[in-house]
C-alpha cells in the first residue's frame, strides 16, 4: 500500500482500500520519465480539468475511467460531474482515458478499479470537484473577457450569464479563454438538495447501441489482419502442460499456429475463432495434473467441517465476556450449521481479450473492471516498459467481479499468445466451457452458529464460526499479511466496524473465521462474502426467534436499538409487505437485512410452495439506504437485477469439484433464472444523507436469499441450511 501515497488509509477505509489494490502496485518499478501532459481530448478539444473537456460545438466531454458493465456507473458519474459543471445534459458525451495516459499524468484520474460497489461512492467527491472547478474556471474566463467580477456571473445548462449587464455566452465563448487560468484550490460543492441533474432518474447514456447490435464488446473487436485464438488450460487447478501434438491439427482449416501459454495452457491460433476452437478440440494434450488431481467436493467439505471446531481462528467481531461460557450456562442453547458452495460468475460474455505485441509496443483491448490492474498485467507479461504498453477498455458483457484483476488470468494469457505472433493482433476467446472451468469462484464456506437465550427469550450470547476460503489470501496476500493472517473481507456484513459492520447488539458476541483455503481459485462474486454471511446470520436469527417464541421481526428489533438505519430499512419492508397482518391464502413471508458496502438494505418476500418443493416467489419488497441516490431509476434496476443473480445462486448454482476440476460445463448444469421465475420487485429507496456514500450494485443481492429461505420454513416447516436449494429437491417455478 505504500505505493499509493495519495490515498490516506484510515482504519475505517481499510476494507475499501485493501480491496481496491489492483495490480497497479506493480507499476512502481518500471515507470518511464513522465512526458508532457496531455491537455486535450482525443479530438483536440481543450481540457478544462481532467474530468471535463469542451468541444467547439459546446458538447461537453466527460471523462470516465471506471468500468461500465451494466450497473450504470458511467451515467451516474457523468450526472455528478454535469451537475457541478452546470452543463447541458443533452450535450454530454463520454470519453475514456486509458491507464497508460493516466500513468503518464501521475494517475491524474485516480482509481480505475470497479468493484466493491465503489464506482460512484468512492469517486463522487473528486469527480464532483472536477466538474465544479471546471465551472469556476469557465465562469472566470468569461468574466475576464467581459471585464466583470466572476462573482456576478452564473452558469446554467452550459450558458454563462452576467446578470447586471445581461451578457451571456455558451461556455466557453472562446475555447482557450480558460487556458492561462489555474485550477481553483477551494472548490465548494452543491448541497445535494439543490441537484437538478444528479439525483434524478435519467436514462442511461449507452442504450441506443445496445438495441441494434452496434455496441462493441470485447468479443466483437475487429482489426486488420487479426487472428483468433481458442485456449484450454489444464482443467485441474495448479496442473501444467506436459506435452501436446501440434502436428495433428496444424493442417486443419484456418490454423496458423499452436502455442503453449504460460506453463498451464495451450492455444490454437487460426483465421476464425470457430476454426481455432474446432482444432483445439482435436489437439492431443497431455497434462501434468499435479497434486490436486484427486480432490473432490467431499474432501473440501471435510476440511471445512474440521475448521468449525478448530482452536485457532481469526476474530472479526467480539463483545462482552466469555461467549462460550455464557452459552454453556444459557437457559436455552440453539445450534445450527450452514453451508455455501463455490459459484461461477457466468457473465453472459465469456472471458476474452485482444492483444498485439511487437518488441516496441504492446496494446490490449478488452473488457476489464480494472484498467490499471490489466495495465500492470500487460506490463508484466509483455516484458516492456510502461511507456510502451496500454490497455483499451471496451463495454463489458457482464462483470460481477469476474473481470477484476486476478493472477494468471485472461489478460495475461492474451498477451502471452500475442507475443508468439509478433505484430499480429490476436483475439483470444474462452468457450463457455473454459469459462465454467476456470472461473474465480465464490468462496466455499461453512458456518456454525450457536446462540444462547435467557429464560425470558433474550439473546445473551452468540458465536458465529466461519470456516472456509479467503479471497484475499489468494488474490491480495499482502493485505492478509498486514492483518497477521486475517482476511477482514470474510466478515463482510458481520464485522466489528466500518462499511460492513454487524447490525445487531449482542451482549456476548464472538464472530471468528477458521481460514481453510482450497486449490480452487476464489474471486469477488457480486456481493462477495455478504452472500453467505447474510444467509447464515439472518436465517439463524429466525431460528433464534422461533426458539424464543417470538416474532422474527420483533426479536430482531430488540437487538437493533443502536442500529437505527438498519432498523429503518427493516421497518420499511415489514410495513410494505404487511408483516403482522394476514397474508393471502397459501402465501408465506420472510425477511432479512444487512449493513454492507456502507449501505443499509432489507428485503421482505412473499412466496408460496406447491407439493412441498415448488417455490413461487411472488413479490420482494427491497429497501435500501445508500446515503445518497445519484440515479433512482438505475438503482431500482440494480436492486431488481441483483435478485435475479442472487436467487439464481440460491436455487440453482453450485460448482462441484471432482478429480480436482469443476464438474459443471455450461448453463444446462449451472442454471440461471428466466423471466417466468422473476418475482415482482418493489424498491423502496430511502437515502438519509450523512457523510458516507453507500454502494448500490452489490448490497441488496444478499437479502433476497435469507428472506426466501425464512419464508420457505414458514411454508413447509422445513429448515434448509445449505445452498443451492436444488440439492434439497426444491425448485423455483
Amino acid at each position, binding site marked *: 500500500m505504500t505505493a499509493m501515497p495519495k490515498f490516506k488509509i484510515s482504519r475505517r477505509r481499510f476494507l475499501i482500500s485493501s480491496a481496491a489494490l489492483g495490480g497497479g502496485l506493480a507499476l512502481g518499478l518500471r515507470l518511464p520519465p513522465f512526458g508532457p501532459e496531455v491537455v486535450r481530448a482525443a479530438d483536440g478539444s481543450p481540457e478544462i480539468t481532467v474530468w471535463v473537456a469542451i468541444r467547439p460545438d459546446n458538447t461537453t466531454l466527460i471523462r470516465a475511467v471506471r468500468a461500465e*458493465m*451494466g*450497473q*450504470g456507473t458511467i451515467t451516474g458519474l457523468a450526472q455528478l460531474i454535469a451537475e457541478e459543471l452546470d452543463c447541458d445534459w443533452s450535450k454530454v458525451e463520454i470519453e475514456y482515458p486509458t491507464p497508460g495516459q493516466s500513468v503518464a499524468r501521475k494517475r491524474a484520474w485516480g482509481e480505475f478499479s470497479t468493484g466493491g460497489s465503489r464506482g460512484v461512492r468512492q469517486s463522487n467527491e473528486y469527480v464532483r470537484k472536477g466538474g465544479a472547478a471546471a465551472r469556476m474556471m469557465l465562469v472566470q474566463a468569461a468574466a475576464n473577457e467581459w471585464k466583470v467580477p466572476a462573482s456576478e456571473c452564473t452558469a446554467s445548462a452550459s450558458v454563462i450569464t452576467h446578470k447586471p449587464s445581461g451578457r451571456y455566452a455558451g461556455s466557453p465563448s472562446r475555447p482557450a479563454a480558460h487556458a492561462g487560468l489555474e485550477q481553483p484550490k477551494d472548490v465548494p460543492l452543491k448541497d445535494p438538495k439543490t441537484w437538478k441533474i444528479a439525483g434524478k432518474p435519467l*436514462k*442511461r447514456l449507452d*442504450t*441506443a*447501441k*445496445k*438495441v*441494434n*447490435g*452496434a*455496441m*462493441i*464488446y470485447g*468479443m*466483437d473487436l*475487429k482489426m486488420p489482419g487479426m487472428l*483468433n485464438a481458442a485456449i484450454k488450460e489444464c482443467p485441474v487447478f495448479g496442473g501444467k502442460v506436459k506435452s501436446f501434438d501440434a502436428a495433428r491439427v496444424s493442417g486443419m*482449416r484456418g490454423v496458423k499456429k499452436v502455442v503453449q501459454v504460460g506453463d498451464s495452457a495451450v492455444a490454437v491460433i487460426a483465421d*476464425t*475463432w*470457430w476454426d481455432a476452437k*474446432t482444432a483445439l478440440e482435436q489437439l492431443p494434450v497431455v497434462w501434468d495434473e499435479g497434486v490436486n488431481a484427486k480432490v473432490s467436493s467431499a474432501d473440501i467439505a471435510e476440511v471445512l467441517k474440521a475448521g468449525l471446531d478448530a482452536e485457532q481462528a481469526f476474530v472479526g467481531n467480539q463483545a462482552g465476556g466469555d461467549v462460550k461460557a455464557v452459552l454453556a450456562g444459557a437457559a436455552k442453547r440453539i445450534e445450527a450449521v450452514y453451508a455455501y458452495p463455490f459459484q461461477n460468475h*457466468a*457473465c*453472459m*460474455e*465469456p472471458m476474452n481479450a485482444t492483444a498485439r505485441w511487437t518488441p516496441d509496443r504492446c496494446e490490449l483491448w478488452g473488457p476489464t473492471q480494472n484498467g490499471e490492474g490489466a495495465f500492470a498485467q500487460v506490463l508484466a507479461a509483455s516484458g516492456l516498459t510502461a511507456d510502451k504498453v496500454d490497455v483499451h477498455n471496451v*463495454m*463489458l*458483457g*457482464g*462483470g*460481477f467481479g469476474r473481470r477484476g484483476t486476478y493472477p494468471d488470468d485472461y489478460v495475461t494469457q492474451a498477451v502471452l499468445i500475442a507475443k508468439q505472433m509478433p505484430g499480429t493482433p490476436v483475439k483470444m*476467446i474462452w*468457450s*463457455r*466451457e473454459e469459462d465454467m472451468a476456470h472461473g474465480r469462484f465464490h468462496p466455499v464456506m461453512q458456518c456454525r452458529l450457536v446462540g444462547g437465550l435467557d429464560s425470558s427469550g433474550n439473546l445473551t450470547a452468540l458465536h458465529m464460526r466461519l470456516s472456509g476460503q479467503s479471497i484475499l489470501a489468494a488474490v491480495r496476500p499482502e493485505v492478509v499479511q498486514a492483518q497477521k493472517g486475517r482476511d477482514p473481507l470474510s466478515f463482510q456484513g458481520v464485522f466489528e466496524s466500518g462499511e460492513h459492520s454487524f447490525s445487531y447488539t449482542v451482549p456476548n458476541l464472538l464472530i471468528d473465521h477458521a481460514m481453510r483455503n482450497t486449490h480452487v481459485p476464489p474471486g469477488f462474486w457480486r456481493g462477495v462474502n455478504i452472500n453467505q454471511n447474510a444467509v447464515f446470520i439472518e436465517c439463524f436469527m429466525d431460528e433464534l426467534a422461533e426458539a424464543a417464541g417470538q416474532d422474527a421481526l420483533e426479536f430482531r428489533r430488540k437487538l437493533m436499538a443502536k442500529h437505527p438505519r438498519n432498523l429503518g430499512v427493516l421497518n420499511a419492508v415489514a410495513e410494505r409487505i404487511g408483516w403482522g397482518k394476514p397474508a393471502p391464502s397459501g402465501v408465506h413471508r420472510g425477511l432479512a437485512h444487512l449493513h454492507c458496502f456502507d449501505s443499509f438494505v432489507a428485503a421482505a418476500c412473499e412466496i408460496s410452495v406447491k407439493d412441498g418443493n415448488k417455490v413461487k416467489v411472488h413479490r420482494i419488497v427491497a429497501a435500501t439506504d445508500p446515503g445518497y441516490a445519484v440515479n433512482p*431509476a*438505475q438503482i431500482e*434496476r440494480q436492486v*431488481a*437485477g*441483483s*435478485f*435475479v*443473480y442472487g436467487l439464481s445462486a440460491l436455487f440453482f448454482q453450485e460448482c462441484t469439484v471432482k478429480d480436482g476440476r469443476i464438474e459443471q460445463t*455450461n*448453463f*444446462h448444469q449451472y442454471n*440461471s*433464472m*428466466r*423471466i*417466468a421465475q*422473476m418475482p*415482482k420487485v418493489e424498491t423502496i429507496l430511502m437515502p438519509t444523507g450523512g457523510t458516507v456514500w453507500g454502494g448500490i450494485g452489490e448490497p441488496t443481492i444478499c437479502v433476497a436469499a435469507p428472506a426466501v429461505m425464512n419464508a420457505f420454513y414458514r411454508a413447509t416447516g422445513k429448515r434448509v441450511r445449505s445452498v443451492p436449494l436444488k440439492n434439497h429437491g426444491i425448485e423455483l417455478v
Partner: protein
Amino acid sequence: MRLTINGKSHEVDVDPTTPLLWVIREQVGLTGTKYGCGVAQCGACTVHMNGLPVRSCSIPVSAASGAKITTIEGLASGKVLHKVQKAWIDHDVPQCGYCQSGMIMAVAALLRTNPKPSDADIDAAITNICRCGTFQQVREAIHMAAKAA
C-alpha cells in the same frame, strides 16, 4: 454457400457444419448476434430464420442456406426502429446489454405471432438468460411494445 441475411446475399466459404452464429459473426461480420453458451441454452444468439426465432449457435450453416435470415442489425426498417427496439429505449431496458440482441429478437418474433401476449404467454415464449436481471423491465417493455402495435 449462399446465405440471405437482412435482405442481402452473401457467399461464404465455410465448413457446412459451422454453426450459423459463427458464420454470421466471423464471415459476414455482423457482431450484434452474441455467443453466450454454444448449446442453445441462453438465447443470446437468437436470430430469425424465415420469421421464426432460432438459436443460431446450434444450427449448422448448411441448414440456413436458402432461408431468409434476420439479425438484430436488420430488425429496424432503415432508420425506423422496430417497436420492440423503441420500447427498449423508452424503458431503459438493457444493463450490460450483451444478451439484449437475442432478447429483442425473441420478443419481436413473439409479437409477430402473438401481438398482445399475456404475462403467461411471455413466460412461455421468452426463455433467454439475462445475468444482469433485466426481466422486470423486459416484461414492461413487451407490454408497451404490444400497445404500440
